[in-house]
């Protein structure tokens, strides 16, 4: 401690830096920790412009290349009303995809933090592990929501009106989904020791979650095994509320609705949007708890 007076032999050349007080253990300290971990994610995101651009390439390809191509192929069987077509249908799915990929990528960056040592800087700090995980999830969710909002700005190109209520509703759902998926990714990352595991996660977790979510096709008239899998996919309950909300605001004749506006049902019971969002929230909280408990362990 610097304030302690030492013997003559230790008289410093210059004044020693004043000692500082370390707070610790209070809720306010934990909130400060959450905030700074969150802020670090944003600084890193803002510094990596290439990442922002490259992560938009994939959803844009899906939306405008795949969407336009399939739209042209389907145009004989599917009625088209103005700009409302297959692209409109997959738009919520593509926004959800943006959230899924960005959130998982942010969360899994913990594995890089582990590899490059920064995780240890965080783990030896006198703050609750829960605060670190919460900050990481908040950061990942914010970044994913920013990316998805950029996609949302393209809504007009696929026949979706810029209605403030619609946009706000979608924004809220995006935020919820981004939080839940980042928490899920953090829980995965808490058990991953190597950077190489990232590819495994992409192939065995992220892509199946995406393809089973109904982002690209309606979850109807599917074989039994596929129906079961799609209903078990948490992403299903991210895509569906967004799509149903979109179609509430899209002027489309019943024939178009009949094809595109197909809500998720359990048996013959149509799952209410509120319940779907609640499921996503519960999933997110459960994953957050798993992540926190995994990071709280010491060998």
């Amino acid at each position: 401690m610097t304030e302690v007076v030492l013997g003559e032999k230790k008289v410093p050349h210059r004044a020693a830096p004043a000692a500082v007080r370390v707070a610790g253990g209070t809720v306010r300290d934990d909130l400060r920790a959450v905030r700074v971990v969150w802020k670090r994610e944003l600084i890193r995101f803002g510094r990596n412009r290439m990442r922002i651009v490259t992560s938009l390439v994939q959803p844009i390809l899906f939306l405008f290349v795949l969407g336009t191509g399939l739209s042209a192929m389907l145009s004989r069987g599917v009625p088209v009303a103005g700009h409302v077509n297959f692209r409109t249908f997959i738009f919520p799915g593509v926004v959800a995809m943006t959230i899924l990929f960005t959130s998982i990528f942010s969360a899994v960056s913990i594995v890089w933090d582990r590899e490059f040592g920064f995780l240890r800087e965080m783990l030896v700090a006198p703050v609750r592990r829960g605060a670190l995980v919460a900050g990481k999830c908040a950061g990942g969710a914010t970044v994913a929501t920013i990316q998805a909002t950029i996609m949302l700005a393209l809504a007009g190109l696929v026949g979706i009106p810029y209605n403030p209520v619609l946009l706000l509703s979608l924004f809220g759902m995006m935020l919820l989904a981004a939080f839940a998926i980042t928490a899920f990714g953090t829980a995965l990352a808490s058990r991953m020791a190597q950077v190489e595991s990232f590819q495994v996660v992409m192939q065995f977790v992220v892509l199946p979650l995406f393809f089973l979510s109904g982002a690209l096709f309606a979850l109807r008239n599917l074989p039994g095994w596929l129906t079961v899998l799609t209903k078990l996919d948490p992403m299903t309950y991210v895509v569906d509320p967004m799509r149903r909300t979109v179609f509430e605001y899209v002027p489309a004749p019943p024939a178009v609705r009949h094809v595109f506006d197909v809500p998720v049902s359990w048996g013959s019971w149509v799952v209410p949007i509120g319940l779907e969002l609640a499921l996503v929230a519960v999933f997110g909280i459960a994953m957050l708890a798993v992540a926190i408990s995994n990071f709280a362990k010491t060998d």
Partner: protein
Amino acid sequence: MGELGTDGAPVDAAAIGAVAAPSGPNGSATIEVVDLAKSFGDLQAVRGVSFSVAAGETFGFLGPNGAGKSTTISMLCTLLRPSSGVARVAGHDVATHQGEVRKHIGLVFQDTTLDDYLTAEENLRFHAELYGIPHEQAAPRLRAVMEMVGLWERRGGLVRTFSGGMKRRLEIARGLLHSPRVLFLDEPTVGLDPQTRSHIWGYINELRRREAITMFLTTHYMDEAEHCDRIAIIDEGRIVVIDTPEALKASVGRDRVRLRTADDEGAIAALRDRFGLEASMSEGEVTFYVAAGEQFVPRLFAELGVAISSVSIARPTLDDVFMTYTGRTIRDAEASASERNAASVWMRAARR
């Protein structure tokens, strides 16, 4: 510097543990370790070590790679849970009061733990926030520690543009930012060139002068261990001996003689039979210890009976201390340690 207790050691009331200090009436143990052990499955990385470090003391753990140094430091830093035994740091048990321990320790690890994509200042700000340093204190303290390591001018630079030595200095600054009572330095100069190593030691020594901080460091460089007030030599998870560098060297008492000969086996046999000296092969040379080496050499040439191509005599160094207490050089010990695959211990510790 060996007896801190007698020359006015800093007394920090809060740091005085329940256990009496080992180093004198005024001393106070900042680190107390009793029978600390850690196993990973069948592998016993640390096999029951006991020692204590007085407030203001610089204490070194010296041993080959894989001897259990990093595992011990990880336990003291609350990153690993001891399998058995007790360790108290700054008056708090590392197993049961992790939060209290973490508040009072600063860490400089052997591999960098900085965020490459943040600037030097941002890395330190992150640390200040994480440690809850009050805002009005954070800015001047941040400047003070950065000036101390000579990086204040470079505060806006991204860390990934920094050299290895600059990163290590920044880590030292960060480790000190929250005014820890104990600074842990795990191999603070590993992987750095000799010039940068000596700079780092310059900073560490200045730090000892300016902040009455307790330092616990590990090293496998013998010359660096001499910077410590006291040294524990650790080998295969056990402490072999603890003392001041001077006392350790004095305890060897003899000079080290190394020979290159035409017939090493014959030379060893001749040394045993004619002089009663135990010699061994070490790093390709016949090595033995004898009092007053210079006076012994003429006799050696006259009576050995084996052709000698070169002789070197050295005053005892910590290398010799290690050799005396463990029967092998630190390099030989590292070779056998890698066979035990103890590197995986550190890997596991590092992953957490």
